[in-house]
Structure formats: C-alpha cells, structure tokens
C-alpha cells in the first residue's frame, strides 16, 4: 500500500435548484479515522460517494484532492451497509473480486491470510447465503482489505448488525484499517464516539467538528468519556434537528 494521504473536499452540492449542502470544507487526516455523523438526508453519503467517484444524482461544484496529488477514486476502497457479496460466488471468490474484475493475477497467499485474520477459514468454499450477517460483513471487510488502498470509505457498514456483532466488527475494522485514511459515515453517535479520531457532525446548517474522547480508538464500549461523548453527539444531532 502507498502511504495514506490527506484528503480535502471543498465545495457544495445541489439537486436541481435545491441545495443539498452549502459550501463546506472537510479534511480527512492522513492515516486516521474520520467519522462523519448525521441524520438521513443531510448529504453525508453524497460526500462519500463523491470521493469514491460514484454517481450521486447531485451536482457538485468544487474540488476533491489528495495530498499526494494522485487521482482520488483510484485510491479508494468502498464498503457499504449492504455487504454487496455476490450470492453466486464463494467467500474466497468474493474476496478476490477486485482482482478478477481488473483481470489481475490474484494474490492467493494474501487472500488466505486475510480470510484467516477475519476468522473465516472454515467458510472459504461457502456461498454468502450460508453465512450470518456478521460473517458476511467480515467477508466484505476482507474484500476491502484485499484491495489494499490507502483510502477506505465506509458507508454505515455496521448499522444492520445486532449490537454485539456491531461492537465486534467495529473492533476488527479499527484494527485492520489502521494506518489508512478512513471516512466512516454513520448515523450512530455511539459508533462515532468509539471509532472517531476526528468526529464531524453534519446537519442542515453545515459541519461541526467535535472533540473525540482521549482514549485511543477503538474505545471500550463502557468507557465513561466515550459514553459522555456519545451523549453529547446525540444532543447536538437533536438540537439541530429541532
């Protein structure tokens, strides 16, 4: 992997005549987790999709630049709420999807290492339909890691999981994605408080930076300061919605 760059988004987006978000500047620090927290419809997923170079249905005026001046979409790996595993392909094949789509020679050793790291070695030959929600998200994480990109975009990847599995996945992802520039889009204040090395709250009025708790991420689920931060973030979300 090339060293993770800083990423800066500067601009505004509109759908037709309606402004989706006003001019804003957002910086993702190199090699760190930035959590973008907000309710539905404020445009946080739009920002993530703009960085990934995906269609958004909105017109974006502005610039997205990486500090290493490389084209951004070629440096990102993407993980969504839906695990997006191909149901007809096995776990092993799904992990290798990127290489197959680019017609590259797949690195089988690396695949096996990642599958083992995600504790999926007993499921290599299974189809996604035979796995639990948590296992499926672990396959998706292995697929994301297989891409080995310096920037990782996470669009609420854990929000469909039950509380326990979600906490496990948060720990696993925080550890596995260390050293990459990560943008986690989420509507869950608890998730932002646990994982954010930088936390941004996005509302109709723009983006407000918040102080993350002092403990290193991933923070323990019952860390008092983390819980307090979670409360403060939720309060902020509710105030702005009112």
């Amino acid at each position, binding site marked *: 992997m090339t060293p993770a760059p800083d990423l800066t988004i500067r601009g505004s987006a509109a759908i037709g005549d309606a402004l989706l978000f006003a001019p804003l500047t957002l910086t993702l620090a190199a090699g760190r987790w930035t959590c973008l927290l907000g309710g539905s419809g404020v445009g946080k997923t739009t920002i993530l999709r703009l960085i990934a170079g995906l269609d958004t249905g909105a017109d974006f005026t502005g610039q997205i630049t990486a500090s290493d001046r490389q084209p951004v979409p070629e440096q990102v790996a993407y993980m*969504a709420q839906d695990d997006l595993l191909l149901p*007809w*392909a096995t776990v092993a094949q799904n992990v290798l999807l990127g290489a197959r*789509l680019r017609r590259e020679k797949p690195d089988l050793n690396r695949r096996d290492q990642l599958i083992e790291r995600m504790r999926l070695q007993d499921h290599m030959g299974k189809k996604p339909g035979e796995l639990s929600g948590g296992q499926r998200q672990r396959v998706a994480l292995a697929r994301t890691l297989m891409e080995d990109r310096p920037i990782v975009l996470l669009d609420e990847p854990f929000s469909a999981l039950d509380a326990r599995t979600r906490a496990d996945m948060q720990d696993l992802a925080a550890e596995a994605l260390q050293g990459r520039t990560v943008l986690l889009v989420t509507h869950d204040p608890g998730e932002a408080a646990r994982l954010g090395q930088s936390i941004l709250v996005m509302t109709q009025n723009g983006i407000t930076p918040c102080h993350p708790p002092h403990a290193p991420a991933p923070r323990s689920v019952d860390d008092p300061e983390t819980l307090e931060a979670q409360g403060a973030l939720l309060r902020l979300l509710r105030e702005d919605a009112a």
Partner: protein
Amino acid sequence: MKLLSALAATVFALAVWQGIVSLTDLPKFILPGPVLVAETWWQNRWIIAENTWVTAVEVVIGLACGTVLGVLTALQLANSRVARVLVQPMLVFTQALPVFALAPLLTLWLGYGLWSKVAMAVLIIYFPITSSFFDGLMRTPPGYLDLARTMQAGPRAVLWHIRIPAALPSLASGMRLAAVYAPIGAVIGEWVGSSQGLGYLMLLANGRAKTDLMFAAMLTLGVFSILLHLTVRRATARIAGETR
C-alpha cells in the same frame, strides 16, 4: 403430496369428462370418452410415438436456437445504446404481429421439413427469452455496480462477472416460459404444412373424423409439454437458486 394432488386432479378431470360423455350420449366422433381415447392411444402407440419424436426434435432444436438467439440479442441490447434505439422498438412491434400468420410464409421459405417448424418455435420463444434476459441485465443491483466501479473494473469485466450472473434467474424464468411455448410453435408449423409430427397427426385424425385419435395425440402433446417444462425447470433451478 404434490404427486398425490396431481393424481387427484387427473382422476377428477377424467371423471368429469366421462360424466359428460355418459350424460349427453354424444356420438363418439363428436366427443369420445376417456376409455375410448385410451384404447385408441394404445392401438396407435407406435404411430403416436413416431410423430411425438418428430415434434420433440423440432421443439428441442427450436428451444436451443431460440435461447441462443435470445441471449445474444439481449447481450447486444444491454451493451449498446444504439442497438436499444434501433432494435428494441422493432422487437416490440413483432410482438404485435400474429406470429401464426407467418407460418405459411415460413413453409414457403424453408420447405415442408424440419426447419420451418423449428423457425416457428424460435419465433415464438425468441421474445420471452430476449426480454426476460435483457430485463435482468438492465436491473443489476446498483450496489454491485458501485462496488465494481470503485474497483476500477472495465465494462466487459462487469458484464461477465456481475451483470450476466445476476441476470441468470431472469433468463431461467424466460426459459421456463419458452418450454411451454415452443411446442405450440412447432405444432402450428406442422398444421400449416407437414407430413409428420403430432400437429400433422391431429389434423389428419380430425379430417377423418377420428376424434379419438385426435384427442390421443393432443393429450400426448400436453404431457410432452409438461415434461419439457419440468425438465427445463429442474435444469434451471440451480442457477436460479444460487443467484438469489
């Protein structure tokens, strides 16, 4: 259970049929009873078998050709906007034509033999195959396409590794439909001009007031169609199930 209910339905249908025949006392050239039809079927089993074979060959070749043609057309349509603009309206227009009316023309072009019947079967199943597979190709879950895009995949790789496999269940349902339509096509072809096949046998029997033989041939065609449908369903169940 399924077999049992199918058996019960068959017995019930035969009873109704026999009931109508007994009550109305119609002459047997108007409506023969099930027993007579069974007897006739048994007496003519070799003739029926021979003609069933002829029709079956037409249907299977037609099904294969129609599927290949439909799949290729759908791929072309999905791949090229120009093809969609130029070909799709024409494809829909052909569905507004009574394809049956083309049967005499096909006989004129392709002769009385096998190929005019194959062509008729192909004409009938081409549209369901094409449109079902094309629909499937155009309705790839958008999340997969997003993922492929972030992986810097080219359009051919996306087609091959994602869009086609995701569209296979749609193709499978088109093929199941085609399996029911194809025998109808072949029989229409035989009606217009032929010297063998179940359609020919039905027409021949009808012309000579051998209504019992006509029924025997028709029921044989029905059973054949159902068996073909079940076979195709079984063959496609795997892909349909796996990609769901």
